[in-house]
């Protein structure tokens, strides 16, 4: 074998603390190494060309690049060696940046360690074999999880591109958080009026199959060929018969239930349609508050339903869909602000969240668009908005900015003045973050045209008191850090801009999809700058706030971006499979079946070979995780490119005694 070694400076990233020329010189002593050099930027075009030239000039049949993490450039260099006619798996990378130069300052020790890592890589390479990918078919259907504005945009764009879409929405209607908003910033457009043409499009588009009130049960398979099990939760109403007439809702006697769509402001019936423009406009019975389903006594809705759609004996149904790609658009939820004692820990009735205030402002909300505070229906004349409740607060482990609160608070202050002209709004803020198009101008309008008083500082306490006229007021005490003195405002209503986190259940969904998520429940993109839509699981894409905090236009953009990624994937007639998968040495396999039980992908099946049971790997399903290899008592099942012999060669290279 003829091996070439290329030691990269990575500018000064490696060169500053590793003597790369010495590493190259040392590696010439290694077995089968016939060429070694150091280069400034190996990944650059001249750097790659020098590899191609060296392969031709020195008749190399294997290449080691000592540079950064394989996650960064393994794919790059595999393409380079392939260009020069070498099989891409006859290439190895030694990570001397993340594993050496960035973590150690001692140049001699770093140089030594780098040389050893190069030896390790070249010893592995000596045991490598050319590998060839297989081709397989793609199911050209996409699953969109979540029916908020990001998911809707992704679904509509995919459908426009001729792709069949399966949309799964957890609640009984699509529309997500945007459907709950009264107006949008900075244009003060009616939120549901902007959104409803899109939700209607979803329901009318023949390419889109909508499963509302449904959740993902499990996902198996791989890019191009996912099998999705969907739990259609029981609505106790046959939606094929329900016309959405609302007779059942009128007559339902269980009326005092917290209204989830209205964020707990106001009450709703046990059978309901979340809001007038709901898609699908079908009724759902909530079993925990339905008298018939809980106590067996009632049945009024069944009596009044003109189409006989009520089915009390309905049960959850699991259906199966085949798709080739998945877009997650599961959005967000607000953090549990009731743990924050300084804002009353959720026990003060007129301290509401920003989303609750949207419902109080909305014409379709519980107060029909008249601002009335929850405790006594008083129209507030003095409203205090508090920013960064559970955001940018390291003391409670939430260091990040929730992004859109500065803007919606400015909007709510403007709308408050519109609804109640004699009112005065106050905003306690830390910094005003308004970097979008027309955003800063908008917050200026709130201050200059609408007279909103912005107070830079935090609130320490909200204390109820009884005014001389017997009305309860809320003393909001805080600091004005610009004036350097305490301030106290007697508010009728307090609105908290509560910080956001990944939607409830996001972590569980991530595990089903085998994608990463952070401690706040946001899904991890493949690269924070250059792959913001992809995940590290091929065929799974992200859209909207599930990936990180963003406002409506950015969520819509990412929805379109995810759709574009899916269309690019589906534009190929066939996909290539990764050849780094398990294979069975049939002579050594004793048919014990242990590998079948540990495989998380059901990629191994039992076959009969001359009457004896043997394991067989389903190549397109195997993900190359290696669990079977570690479990096999005979060493009969190996993972290509990571065989026992290849790994032992690495160990032997390092452990020379």
């Amino acid at each position, binding site marked *: 074998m003829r091996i070439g070694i290329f030691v990269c400076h990575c500018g000064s990233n490696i060169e500053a603390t590793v003597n790369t020329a010495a590493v190259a010189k040392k590696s010439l002593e290694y077995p089968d190494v016939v060429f070694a050099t150091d280069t400034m930027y190996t990944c650059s075009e001249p750097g790659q060309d020098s590899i191609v030239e060296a392969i031709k000039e020195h008749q190399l049949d294997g290449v080691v690049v000592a540079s950064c993490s394989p996650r960064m450039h393994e794919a790059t260099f595999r393409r380079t060696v392939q260009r020069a006619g070498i099989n891409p798996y006859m290439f190895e990378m030694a990570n001397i940046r993340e594993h050496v130069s960035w973590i150690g300052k001692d140049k001699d020790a770093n140089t030594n360690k780098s040389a050893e890592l190069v030896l390790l890589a070249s010893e592995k390479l000596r045991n490598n074999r050319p590998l060839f990918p297989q081709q397989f078919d793609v199911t050209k259907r996409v699953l969109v999880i979540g029916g908020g504005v990001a998911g809707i945009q992704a679904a509509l764009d995919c459908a426009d591109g001729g792709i069949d879409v399966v949309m799964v929405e957890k609640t009984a209607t699509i529309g997500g958080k945007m459907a709950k908003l009264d107006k949008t910033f900075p244009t003060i457009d009616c939120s549901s009026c902007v959104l409803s043409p899109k939700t209607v499009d979803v329901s009318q588009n023949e390419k889109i199959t909508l499963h509302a009130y449904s959740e993902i049960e499990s996902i198996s398979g791989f890019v191009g060929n996912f099998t999705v099990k969907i739990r259609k939760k029981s609505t106790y109403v046959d939606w094929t018969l329900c016309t959405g007439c609302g007779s059942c809702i009128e007559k339902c006697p269980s009326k005092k239930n917290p209204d989830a769509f209205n964020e707990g402001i106001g009450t709703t019936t046990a059978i309901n349609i979340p809001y007038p423009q709901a898609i699908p406009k079908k009724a759902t019975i909530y079993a925990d508050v339905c008298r018939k389903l809980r106590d067996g006594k009632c049945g009024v809705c069944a009596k009044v339903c003109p189409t006989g759609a009520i089915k009390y004996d309905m049960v959850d149904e699991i259906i199966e869909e085949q798709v080739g790609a998945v877009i997650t658009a599961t959005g967000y939820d607000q953090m549990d602000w009731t743990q924050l*004692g*300084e804002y009353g*820990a959720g026990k003060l009735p007129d301290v509401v969240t920003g989303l609750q205030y949207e419902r109080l402002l909305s014409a379709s909300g519980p107060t029909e668009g008249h601002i009335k505070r929850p405790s006594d229906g008083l129209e507030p004349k003095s409203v205090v908005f508090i920013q960064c409740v559970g955001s940018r607060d390291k003391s409670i482990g939430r260091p990040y900015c929730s992004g859109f609160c500065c803007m919606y608070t400015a909007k709510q202050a403007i709308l408050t003045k519109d609804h109640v002209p004699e009112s005065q709004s106050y905003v306690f803020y830390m910094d005003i973050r308004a970097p979008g198009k027309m955003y800063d101008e908008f917050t200026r309008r709130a201050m200059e045209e609408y007279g909103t008083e912005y107070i830079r500082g935090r609130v320490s*306490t909200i*204390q*109820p*008191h*009884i005014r001389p006229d017997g009305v309860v007021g809320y003393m909001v005490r805080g600091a004005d850090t610009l004036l350097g003195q305490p301030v106290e405002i007697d508010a009728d209503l307090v609105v908290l801009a509560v910080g956001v986190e990944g939607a409830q259940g996001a972590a569980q969904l991530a595990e089903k999809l085998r994608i990463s998520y952070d401690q706040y429940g946001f899904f991890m993109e493949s690269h924070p700058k250059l792959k913001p839509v992809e995940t590290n699981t091929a065929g799974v894409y992200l859209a909207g706030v599930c990936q990180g905090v963003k406002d409506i236009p950015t969520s819509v953009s990412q929805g379109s971006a995810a759709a574009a990624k899916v269309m690019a994937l589906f534009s190929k007639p066939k996909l290539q499979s990764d050849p780094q998968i398990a294979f069975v040495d049939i002579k050594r396999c004793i048919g014990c079946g242990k590998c079948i039980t540990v495989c998380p992908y059901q990629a191994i099946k039992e076959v009969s070979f001359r009457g004896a049971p043997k394991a067989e790997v389903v190549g397109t399903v195997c993900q190359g995780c290696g669990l079977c290899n570690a479990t096999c008592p005979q060493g009969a099942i190996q993972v290509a490119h990571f065989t026992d012999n290849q790994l032992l060669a690495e160990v032997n290279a390092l452990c020379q005694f």
Partner: protein
Amino acid sequence: MKLAYYPGCSGEGTSKEYDVSTRAICEALGFTLTDIDDWSCCGSTPGHSLDHALSGALSARNLALASTMEADCVVTPCPSCLSNLKHAKHRMEDPAFKAKVDELLDEPTPALPEPYSVLQVIVEKLSMEEIAAKVKKPLKGLKVACYYGCLMVRPPKVMQFDDYENPMSLDNLLVALGAEVVPFPLKTECCGASLGVVDKEVTSKLSGRILERAKQFGANCVVSACPLCQMNLDLRQSQAEEAMGQKFELPIFYYTQLLGLALGLDDSALMMNKLVVSPHALLKSLDAPAEAVAPEAKAEPKAEDKSDEGAAS
């Protein structure tokens, strides 16, 4: 349970009734108090305002004395003393700080025991059911605003007791004693503390606000766990009334007095007559048959001198 007891200076003067009732209820609840021999002042506010090391040395001296006693833990009734003791213990973890203290005390300070408030020991060592079972005279008819003061639970990292935004230990205790507890949003507000000595306007306003809010939410008395808070709310109540332009006439009890009352202790152990705003009418109404209980007890003429000079401590 054996407790090393740090009475604090005010227990010998302005809050005699707190000290006496604390000793009495501890005995009734089965805690044995032994005074720390030769204890000295914790330095109070002047001490730590001037120099942390000085304040630390004064407190460390007392804790070091307590460490030689055979006791399960060190307690004090006074939150201000407790704050100094706890801060000293906390700051002594810093070797540079300990070196300063050692120098002031002329010898290396031994490992110091953790001090607790008497209240914390009572509510953590006894269950509310146990306490309720000992009640001989339920405090039915008392509508109490529980006022913890700013020091009992703050700063949370040092005090390590109860919820620092909405403490509930006194509330739970008073409920166990049969009293009604009113919702009270100013549980941990500042009463003005020792500013009464130099600027009584501030104290009058801050204490006035606490009393006003207690009244608004339907309290007919306030319970306190701090000698200084109690003094500001009780002795200076007429000043607060003047500042707020309204009458409060709210008796301000130490929680130990009400606990003793519920346990059936003799008045010599409670010293109710030491309170400036007389509680006697209110307490009398408790003895009356339920239907005759007046919603608002009328305060009797105040017997004690409540001039400013008397309040300086």
